């Protein structure tokens, strides 16, 4: 990934900066310019906000044929993670025992190397996820800033679309 392409997304990659629709309070990650629920009514009302950095595994897989740059990590775990604010995210789950990785497991974000432009190029940092130890309180890595953050659950269209697993017949 080229330097400017990576650089312009540092707030999203390092700090899970999302966008919140001022009209319906829907939260989107990665941030959107237009809310798909409110469309025109949302233009100019999409405000940056940070996700709390906790979530729940909705589904996961162990990858044996890696994406470029992940060769040393195979097999590694990729998961769909439901953030309490509303968005579903794709991310890598690291540092977690395989028996701890399951649908419904609580995860929190950690700061890790995500890739690099070869041995001589820039290093790409970003967010990965670890399974919270059993019984551990959910902990947010979000650091208070002057910016608007909001832990309220989002209303809007996509709220809790991905319910934790229920085995239906």
């Amino acid at each position, binding site marked *: 990934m080229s330097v400017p392409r990576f650089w312009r997304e540092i*707030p999203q990659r390092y700090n899970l900066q999302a966008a919140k629709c001022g009209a319906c309070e829907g939260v989107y990650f990665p941030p959107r310019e237009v809310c798909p629920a409110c469309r025109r009514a949302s233009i100019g009302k999409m405000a940056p906000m940070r996700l709390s950095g906790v979530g729940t595994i909705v589904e996961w897989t162990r990858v044996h044929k890696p994406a470029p740059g992940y060769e040393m990590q195979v097999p590694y775990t990729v998961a769909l993670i439901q953030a309490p604010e509303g968005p579903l995210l794709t991310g890598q789950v690291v*540092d977690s*025992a395989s028996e701890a990785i399951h649908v419904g497991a609580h995860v929190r974000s*950690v700061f890790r*190397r995500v890739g690099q432009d070869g041995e001589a190029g820039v290093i790409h940092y970003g967010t990965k996820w670890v399974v919270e130890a059993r019984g551990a309180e959910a902990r947010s*890595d979000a*650091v208070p*800033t002057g910016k608007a953050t909001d832990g309220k659950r989002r209303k809007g269209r996509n709220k809790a679309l991905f319910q934790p697993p229920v085995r239906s017949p």
Partner: protein
Amino acid sequence: MPVGITSYGAYVPRYRIKSEEIARVWGDDANVGKGLNVHEKSVPGLDEDVATISVEAARQAMRRAKTTPNDLGAIYVGSESHPYAVKPTGTIVQAALDATPFMTMADYEFACKAGTAAVQTGMGLVKSGMCKTVLAIGADTSQGAPRNALEYSASAGGAAILIGAEKKHILAEIQHTVSFTTDTPDFWRREGQKYPSHGERFTGEPAYFRHVREASERLFADTRTTAKDYTHAVFHQPNGKFPATIAEKLGFTKEQYATGLLAPRIGNTYSGAVLLGLAAILDIAEPDDSIFMCGYGSGAGSDAFQLEVTRNIEDYDRSPREQLATQLASTTMLDYATYAKHRGKIILGGSE
């Protein structure tokens, strides 16, 4: 005006390798770890480096702080294994904290004492009134060449120390600091070299012991204290043996230095070592406890500190989930092959 630690964070990667496992691969005496008093050492994850360790430690410090990242006036990251030779680690920490861009910054390198040098710089900036709060970090993912003695100890970890002058926020006041520095090449890494070199037995008496002793004795003299006046003591710990030896020579008892001595379990985290030891002490310290701390960096220099814990520590979040001990209790043991993979000692072929 007092100056002191207003918050702190610590991070040690969860992976470990046992000294016996390293000895097994190279046919060394299985007791080599016992001799060094390093039974296992921490190993970074495949996606961890000094920047990620610094960020994790700094985020914990900021999470527990009464100040915000916008109050930071400077970030200094001390390390001998910065991910870039040219390009600061500090900016990555700054961005990950979403901190104000109106701050000054530089990365530090002074072998294992870059972290304490960062603390001293922070004290100066805060005391002078130039900065409200300074974040000082010592972190490393140091490497020992395969089969080298260093391989038994060189490990990974780091600590972040927030330095401020607001009395209501100071957890531990830094009452005094003194340094002793000479040109003593006991350990070095030339530009472009992957692994450091060292002077073997030369790293002992003329290097570590002399510098730690000189700085410590000067601190005692300056503050009119002796070892007996301190509740806790922590020294740079290239292994588990050196700090115990110097501590006892200076008159400290095992009881005083045991809490901060982490090397037997995690190895030598270089720039992180003495600050991680301090974090372990602060995790259990009580108001009015006095702490003696002395770092050492090859090349060579020692920074000694006198600290006193305040009542503010009682309101500070030291619940089990925030304690270093909790982190250290959760580990994943690696065999040598996996360790070699983690440390980039396995080279992938061209077809990958």
